[in-house]
């Protein structure tokens, strides 16, 4: 057995004899177990509720009876954001983005039922999720496990004895790192096995198309993150003169990287790129609908131009002479213009979100915690980009539904006979229910290339740092 493995074995043996470490380890394992169980229960409950409500709403749509298609377009339906199985691991933005939306003609409604609305302000500190335990609490355990990895050896003199045996600093450092990695592996194994089993059991029935790949990537990302925490902790211990100094430095680093910096970046991004208030946003949309995007083309002018265009095109004197119901055409034209207005205003909002996220991504270069947080949400399907993808799919569905209603009205009813024409179940059945499938992990990770690069760069950087410090390591100064 090499010296490195001997050192790893010794470190593991000593760690398991430290009561505080064993106690903290058990607490972390219990928290992970609880978060996994609670997450699974919540996932199952929400899935059941969403499936039932989706079926109810579908039946309501199909059994709404005979009515005018435009009234049906206003009767509308609902779309529900399915809970992804990996959201039980990382809740991400689920509490803030809303779970369902009402779909009807003319209006792109905002999402309803944001769980955060029903919670106290304490939710801002984070719900107990597995990702929270792994991202925030586990680094604390690593700090307590490894802050004295070198300082204890230096303070007690065992480092002199170790190095007098001809053991290289490289073997000592990597032996310690290997030991802490194995300890974490032992501690996290039951949790990850549980997660894999749950993910596997629900994979065929989930909105994520590639649960297995995403789970594997999640585990890889967390392995890299925890490896970084371990290497940085060992490095700081190596560079510190006393255990107290090492612990204080590490706790300062933890507070800065895990608490202060992410909050500061979030606040700065809001200050640099402020979002308009909901009132301003809605007023802007109404104004554009009323007076046009240029502010000079009201609806009446747009409709008059459309009428003239159709009369000239079909060479007829009145709208009733057209071979279709012009009301259906004008409804759809109004819908198309409304869509353009929504796209314009939502693009503005998304551009601001994108700038805010960009700042977060840039910050992740300097902070592997932020990088891990972003990648974890993305792979769990609970980030903003996945939500935007869902929002786009829903909006596309709404537009398809309304277009189909307007086309039916144009094709099958007569001009001026609004209340006389009624469509029935045959038309309602033409509209499939809305069932969402999230994008593949490759698509989901695309906006996070900086975060991926950040983690890789940190790994290279810490290895370089350790290599450099190992060369200089002597048990005494001089």
């Amino acid at each position, binding site marked *: 057995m090499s010296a490195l493995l001997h050192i790893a074995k*010794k470190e593991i043996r000593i760690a398991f004899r430290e009561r505080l470490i064993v106690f903290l380890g058990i607490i972390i394992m219990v928290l992970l177990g609880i978060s996994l169980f609670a997450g699974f229960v919540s996932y199952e409950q929400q899935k059941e509720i969403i499936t039932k409500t989706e079926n109810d709403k579908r039946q309501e749509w199909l059994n709404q009876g005979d009515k005018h298609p435009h009234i049906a377009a206003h009767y509308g339906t609902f779309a529900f954001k399915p809970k992804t199985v990996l959201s039980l691991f990382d809740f991400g933005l689920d509490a803030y983005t809303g779970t369902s939306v009402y779909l009807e003609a003319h209006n792109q409604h905002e999402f309803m039922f944001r769980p955060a609305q029903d919670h106290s302000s304490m939710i801002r500190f984070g719900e107990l999720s597995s990702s929270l335990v792994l991202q925030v609490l586990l680094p604390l355990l690593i700090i307590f496990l490894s802050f004295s990895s070198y300082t204890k050896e230096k303070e007690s*003199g*065992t480092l002199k*004895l170790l190095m*007098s*045996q*001809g*053991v290289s600093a490289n073997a000592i450092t990597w032996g310690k790192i290997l030991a802490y990695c194995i300890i974490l592996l032992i501690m996290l194994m039951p949790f990850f096995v549980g997660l894999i089993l749950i993910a596997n059991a629900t994979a065929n029935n989930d909105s994520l198309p590639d649960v297995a790949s995403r789970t594997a990537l999640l585990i890889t990302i967390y392995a890299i993150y925890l490896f970084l925490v371990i290497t940085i902790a060992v490095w700081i211990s190596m560079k510190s003169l006393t255990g107290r100094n090492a612990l204080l430095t590490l706790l300062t680093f933890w507070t800065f990287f895990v608490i202060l910096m992410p909050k500061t970046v979030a606040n700065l991004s809001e200050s640099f790129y402020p979002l308009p208030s909901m009132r301003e946003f809605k007023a802007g949309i109404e104004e554009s609908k009323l007076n046009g995007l240029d502010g000079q083309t009201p609806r009446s002018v747009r409709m008059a131009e459309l009428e003239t265009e159709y009369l000239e095109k079909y060479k007829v004197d009145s709208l009733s002479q057209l071979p279709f119901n012009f009301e259906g055409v004008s409804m759809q034209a109004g819908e198309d213009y409304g869509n353009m207005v929504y796209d314009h205003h939502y693009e503005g909002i998304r551009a601001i979100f994108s700038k805010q996220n960009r700042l977060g991504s840039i910050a992740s270069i300097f902070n592997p915690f932020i990088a891990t947080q972003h990648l974890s949400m993305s792979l769990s399907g609970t980030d903003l980009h996945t939500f935007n993808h869902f929002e786009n799919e829903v909006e596309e569905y709404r537009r398809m539904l309304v277009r189909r209603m307007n086309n039916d009205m144009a094709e099958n009813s007569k001009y001026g006979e609004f209340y006389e024409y009624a469509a029935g179940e045959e038309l309602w059945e033409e509209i499939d229910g809305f069932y969402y499938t999230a994008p593949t992990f490759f698509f989901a990770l695309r906006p996070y290339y900086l975060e991926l690069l950040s983690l890789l760069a940190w790994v290279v950087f810490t290895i370089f740092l350790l290599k450099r410090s190992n060369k200089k390591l002597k048990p005494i100064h001089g």
Partner: protein
Amino acid sequence: MLKSVNLTKKYGNFTALNELNLSVKEGDIFCLLGANGAGKSTTINLFLNFISPSAGSATINGLDVSKHDKETKQLLSYIPENLMLYPNLTGMENLDFFCGLGNKNYSKQELENLLLQSGLQADFMNRRVSSYSKGMRQKVGIALARAREAKVLLLDEPTSGLDPKASNEFSELLLEMKGNGVATLMATHDLFRAKETGTHIGIMKQGVLIEHFESDEVSFQDLEKMYLKHMHN
């Protein structure tokens, strides 16, 4: 076995060791005497390659320690003034661990024998080192030196703070190892122990080896006088 040629260590303007020339052959026990700061520990640390020389060289078995760190360390065993082992491991586990580092793998029985031969009571072998006295820890150090089959022993005031019985036992173990051809360089304040166990004695002052003789050449009284004379001048 051990040799230094013009070995010098400077810290800025301060010379901790000045052109030390000494040689320790197989079966020799070379005792370095001197007050605190005389350069004894600096010499040991230079042979251990824990610090780099400002000039000159330290060699073990003909190999420069600063150029052949791994090879030379495989030949030596080091026992500091206060041998610290891992307190959460037992004496056996500590010995097993340090033997393993040098690719020396022993059975449980062999490890027990090594500890017994080094004077550690059987009752204590499987107790955590945190309950050991200093003398017991030094015995584990001797057991380690035996286990590693060290050709060179570097001792930095190993009997300091030991009670007379433990100190005497330690000397007996050194003499036993001497009989096996081990070359020992020992820094010590203990004149009596140096005269009793040493084959050669050197007196150091302010980084310089000012006296160097075979221990048989002087009586204990003469050694004491010589030492005190140098310390007071």
